[in-house]
């Protein structure tokens, strides 16, 4: 179990750093969602299941969807732009 905790902590730090340092906005939002999912598993390992359910629903379900809607509003979804140029 200590191996799993260390691995999850390592992934948390890596995904948080990459969210800040990456240039492409779409990838940053997806990494933010990944951070939320890892955090949800950490809450389960810390034996607070209320927080795990809330973190999973809010992090991966709501804030990420709102971020994607914002990216679409500012036309930063690169896939859409490539379609438009054709």
């Amino acid at each position: 179990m200590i191996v799993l905790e260390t691995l999850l902590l390592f992934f948390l730090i890596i995904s948080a750093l990459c969210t800040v340092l990456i240039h492409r906005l779409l990838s940053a939002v997806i990494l933010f969602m990944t951070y939320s999912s890892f955090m949800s598993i950490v809450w389960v390992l810390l034996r607070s299941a209320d927080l795990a359910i809330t973190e999973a629903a809010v992090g991966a379900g709501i804030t990420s969807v709102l971020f994607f809607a914002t990216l679409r509003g500012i036309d930063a979804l690169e896939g859409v732009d490539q379609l438009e140029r054709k």
Partner: protein
Amino acid sequence: MNANNSFWDRVTHGQPLWDESHSVLLSGTGRPDPKPRSARRRSTRGRVRLALKLYQLFTILTGIFLMAALCAAIVQLPAFGDESAPTNNEVSQRYVEQGMVETGATNTVAGMILDYRAFDTFGESIVLFCATFCVSFLMRHSRKPDALCDKSQDKLLQITVNILFPFVALYGVYVVLNGHLSPGGGFSGGAILGAGLILLAASYGESSIAKILSPRVVTYLSVGSLSIYAALKGFSFYSGANHLNLDISKGTPGTILSAGFILPLNCCVGIIVACTVYSFFSLFAPHDSYD
């Protein structure tokens, strides 16, 4: 809108008051004033400038006062790790030992946040409501129709959502109703329900959902749930510690109809969270020109 052509009509209808160089006050028709040196217009311009400066001054004073009040309160908090601090006394032990007996809830966390400290959860629900209110107030006029949102939508997504949404909604309702028995509660279940509603709105378009769940219905739902929460748990504050004699008994711990007020409060909190989440999406998502 320009019927009266007066300056205050431009103020109330949100039209620009100054020209581009911010030096000439515009009249009702939007052109620079033809006679800027007449005495009446000078006094109007002076009064408007004075009112704006007073408004800025009072804003700054209110901000400084709030900062001073909060700092004065923080200074009086106990030191970190102090033995006589309220986090280290016998209250937490009592919550753990007698929580199930006194509240009737198997989930001690739900018993704590919705029975012992129900007023704090009321404050959290008010924060959610204020966030929705402020965002919708600021974004009232900036909803432009999005040209990318065409009417012919993704059929595959709609078929998938047809199968998926009932399970998501059922799971959300289950998490809300079982808040006092198993981990979950109003906040998690409301978030799941809100995510399901966002899925539905994203695949069918908002104008289809607005026939059932228009912004007005969402507002009424959240205001109604907040008022019910306030009546149930705020009643003792303004009636001299007399609770509502609604005779909701504690029941046997472990059954679904138990724990007194916790089940109705969980439902209220779930509705508030779901409405907040859905209204955030409906304000920020692109909508078609039907609106």
